[in-house]
């Protein structure tokens, strides 16, 4: 074959070079630059939009990521991964209702995707659809038993089924003794049931794990206020205003506790004062 007869076929590069460049930049941690390479693609490519959504998600631009994944699910309606990722973006954009739909779509395409079930349960909790959330967590397989049990405990607590919720939390706490969130929720539960001993116990446990925990300090302050231990109340409220200066209740209660301490000094002395007190400064 003569050289003049060879037909040269020009292959249009398309978007693959853009994708390759973005992936290389992303792997080196240069997410902003990676995202920059994917703007204004010459043509639609679902993989490009998938990578773009991933980078936007990693950058915390959940709304933008949702738009990217919308494009993917539009062109690939049977793509369970894209529906799931879209649901996560919508969830982080506070679009709870829409995220439920996307999770449900992902589950209809891939019923074994437990993470979608967990996400659906979390969104249902925000929507106050508590019974549905509880049922969803019950459907999770053992692969996600721990977080599903936590979801159940939260749903039960919000349903005011406090006994069941506390049992569920206690089981979780046995395997995760340093879980601040479990302890915080248990403090809230004990506050709800007005169980001062449990408030104190859980707050002290939490304070050991996290000495600056506002929830623990609030719990201990409550117990001190209820039991009229004004010095302790003032001490906890004082710590509280340092770690949470925006907590107006802490400022108020600090002032109240201090006022009560000062008032106690001016109060009449008990009649049954000991002999050491008898002539002290009273003429």
């Amino acid at each position, binding site marked *: 074959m003569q050289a003049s007869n060879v037909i040269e076929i020009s292959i249009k590069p398309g978007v693959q070079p853009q994708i390759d460049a973005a992936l290389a930049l992303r792997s080196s941690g240069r997410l902003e630059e990676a995202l920059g390479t994917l703007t204004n693609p010459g043509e639609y490519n*679902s*993989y490009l939009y*998938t*990578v773009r*959504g*991933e980078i936007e*998600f990693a950058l915390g631009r959940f709304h933008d990521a949702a738009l990217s994944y919308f494009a993917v699910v539009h062109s*690939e309606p049977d*793509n369970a*991964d894209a529906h*799931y*990722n879209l649901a*996560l973006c919508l*969830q*982080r954009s*506070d679009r709870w209702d829409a995220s439920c739909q996307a999770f449900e779509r992902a589950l209809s395409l891939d019923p074994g995707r437990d*993470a979608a079930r*967990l*996400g659906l*349960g*979390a969104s249902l*909790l*925000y929507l*106050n659809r508590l019974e549905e959330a509880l049922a969803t967590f019950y459907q999770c397989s053992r692969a996600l038993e721990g*977080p599903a049990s*936590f*979801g159940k405990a939260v749903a039960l*607590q*919000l349903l005011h089924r406090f006994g069941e919720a506390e049992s569920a939390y206690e089981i979780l706490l046995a395997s995760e003794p340093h*879980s601040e*969130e*479990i302890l*915080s*929720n248990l403090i*809230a*539960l004990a*506050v*709800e049931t*007005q169980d001062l001993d449990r408030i104190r116990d859980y707050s002290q446990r939490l304070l050991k794990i996290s000495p600056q925990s506002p*929830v623990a300090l*609030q*719990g201990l302050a*409550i117990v001190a*206020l*209820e039991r*009229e231990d*004004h010095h302790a*109340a003032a001490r906890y409220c004082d710590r509280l205003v340092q770690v949470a200066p925006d*907590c*107006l*209740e*802490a400022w*108020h*209660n600090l*002032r*109240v*506790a201090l*006022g*009560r301490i000062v*008032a106690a000094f001016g109060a009449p002395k008990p009649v049954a004062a000991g002999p050491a007190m008898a002539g002290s400064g009273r003429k």
Partner: protein
Amino acid sequence: MGNSKASSIAQLPVAESPVTTELGSEQARAFHFAVTWVGLFAHLDPVEATGPRQLPEAPSASLALVPVVVPAPFVQQGVVEQRAEPRAAGQRTGQDSNSAWEMVVPKMIRTGSGNFTPPEGSDPRLL
């Protein structure tokens, strides 16, 4: 991956502390305790694509070689029945058969109006 946004939102259900004790001239105020489920989000990470998605192959919709049943050409029923008479029950058909068929296509005559009409007396005939 945590969800910091969720933690700030999870303030809907709030437990009020039971503080009602009157302290001095003022009452202590109730603290707010939120039930949170931020821990759930630690298990919800996006699925990363490993490459362009491989679409399932769709079955080819063309160039299929399938047996096709072609409707037999129109033959007057009477002709068939007439020819079938000598065939006794159990008699083999096929290569032992001496019968021969000819299809007679009726001639079409163009009329003045442009329509085709069959000529009179052009019934299919058996040779």
